[in-house]
């Protein structure tokens, strides 16, 4: 193991843990924006993905995304069940850390990407059909796209398309799927007619903080080594997030509204999503411009849903889709060989061809993800039905899908009902009664 660099390994393992933390963070970010009756249903969608997608990743996902290339389209099954993914480095991806460290870092990206989509169909999808869609999307869209863009031998990577940390693979792909989801599942009952408003914005702010923190692992970790490039990605990430926070709030204020907390948080996420594909290719100065643009462009992008009438409930298209596309194109404008020699220059440094490659990457990934997502939705709908029925939607996902509620603020502490035992919860009432009776004088 003479090639292993302990500093790099420590860095990537910590970054992997930080990226893992983003998925529960996303659960809170989304959970705060839905109505009280859907808070757990929304949180659960992200949380269960953490379980299921990770297992699929270990079984075959990693192999299909990063295994030895087949025709530039997909990895083979060499790494099935993590076979051969051990402590020695895989020089094709990260020559100074164990192959296993690269695999677990990438696992966290595979997990959060389908979780991002859940914001588009929030408050109305059956848990079973959500699971079916998510698993199918992960296999049919995420794994091939990750291979095309990041896999050794992937055809977009070979063309020179740049995506430092997932503007295409994570944000544009999930954003395109989100658009398909919003169109296919239809609007929530009452959308555009009655107020459907966030029930707990402080929860969303906690989620934003966790996402922002985790994003340092996401972007800086994508350098796959501790050092200058990771530092540059860390700094550009932070700059873009702050710039977009400010520009979003300024725009909503100038437009005659008030500066809002949810706007500040949304701006931050827009800035983070937008800088993601460019973080390791552009200078801190460019990151300011990219961040400012992200806050303004994404602010206008989220109003499109009212214009076109689709219910992208938590604005996955406007924030992640548009942000991912904007950032991928920004890399084509601002990439500088002085920051990352391996990537070369963008348009503003005399190389217009990179911008065309980036545009091609956007076209391919967005087009593929949108069409494949529509097909998957169609099949899932035929098989088990995508939406909950009217009564369940009005009741809320928490009770109808999970038999629990997020908040008991009644003050009655559940004493207003009886306790029903079942086989799975076979307590012995007799022993409880005898305990109580000894306390009675």
């Amino acid at each position, binding site marked *: 193991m003479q090639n292993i660099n302990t500093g790099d390994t420590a860095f990537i393992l910590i970054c992997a843990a930080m990226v893992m933390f983003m998925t529960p963070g996303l659960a809170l970010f989304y959970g705060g924006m839905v109505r009280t009756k859907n808070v757990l249903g929304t949180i659960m969608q992200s949380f269960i993905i953490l379980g299921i997608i990770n297992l699929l990743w270990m079984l075959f996902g990693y192999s299909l995304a990063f295994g030895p290339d087949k025709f530039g389209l997909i990895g083979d099954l060499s790494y099935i069940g993590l076979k051969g993914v051990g402590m020695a480095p895989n020089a094709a991806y990260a020559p100074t850390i164990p192959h296993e460290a690269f695999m677990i870092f990438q696992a966290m990206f595979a997990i959060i990407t389908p979780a991002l989509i859940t914001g588009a169909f929030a408050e109305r999808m059956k848990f079973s059909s959500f699971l079916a869609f998510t698993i199918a999307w992960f296999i049919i869209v995420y794994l091939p796209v990750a291979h095309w863009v990041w896999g050794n031998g992937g055809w977009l990577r070979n063309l020179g398309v740049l995506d430092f940390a997932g503007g295409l693979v994570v944000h544009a792909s999930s954003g395109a799927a989100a658009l398909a989801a919003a169109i296919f599942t239809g609007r929530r009952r009452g959308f555009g007619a009655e*107020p*459907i408003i966030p029930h707990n914005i402080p929860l969303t702010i906690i989620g934003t903080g966790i996402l922002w923190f985790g994003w340092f692992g996401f972007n800086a970790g994508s350098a796959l080594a501790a050092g200058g490039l990771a530092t540059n990605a860390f700094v550009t990430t932070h700059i873009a997030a702050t710039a977009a926070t400010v520009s979003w709030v300024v725009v*909503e204020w100038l437009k005659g509204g008030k500066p*809002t907390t*949810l706007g500040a948080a949304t701006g931050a996420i827009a800035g983070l999503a937008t800088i993601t594909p460019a973080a390791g290719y552009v200078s801190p100065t460019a990151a300011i411009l990219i961040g400012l643009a992200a806050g303004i462009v994404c602010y206008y992008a989220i109003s499109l849903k009212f214009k076109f009438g689709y219910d992208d409930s938590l*604005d996955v298209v406007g924030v992640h889709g548009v942000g991912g596309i904007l950032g991928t194109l920004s890399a084509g404008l601002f990439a500088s060989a002085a920051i990352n020699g391996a990537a070369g220059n963008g348009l503003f440094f005399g190389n217009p061809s990179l911008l065309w490659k980036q545009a091609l990457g956007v076209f391919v990934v967005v087009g593929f993800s949108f069409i494949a997502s529509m097909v998957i939705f169609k099949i899932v709908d035929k098989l088990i039905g995508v939406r909950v029925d009217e009564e369940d939607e009005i009741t809320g996902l928490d009770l109808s899908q999970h038999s629990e509620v997020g908040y008991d603020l009644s003050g009655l502490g559940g004493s207003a009902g009886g306790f029903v035992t079942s086989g799975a919860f076979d307590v012995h009432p007799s022993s409880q009664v005898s305990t109580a009776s000894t306390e009675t004088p």
Partner: protein
Amino acid sequence: MKKIEAIVKPFKLDEVKDALSGIGIKGLTVSEVQGFGRQKGHTEVYRGAEYTVDFVPKVKLEVLVEDNLAAQVVDTIMDAAKTGKIGDGKIFVIPVEDAIRIRTNERGNDAI
């Protein structure tokens, strides 16, 4: 006996309570309620989308008094809860058939 129900602005609750204590009222019930009247609701904005919220939060007080005190209680609540602006609330006076103190079985005025 009369029950006096008053729906007032939430920030006036303390003043109303102190004023009622000042004239010897020994108990009242308070609930947080929502509703609408001549006062319009308000607008909330989330990610640039405006929503109107029709129901305005108010506080409802319920006070049980002997018949001869009802007018004084109404006047006291009016003085304490009035701001002169729209949305100050309403007062209802309702006849009550009986009242019972559960602990002692006292009835009528004795139970107040």
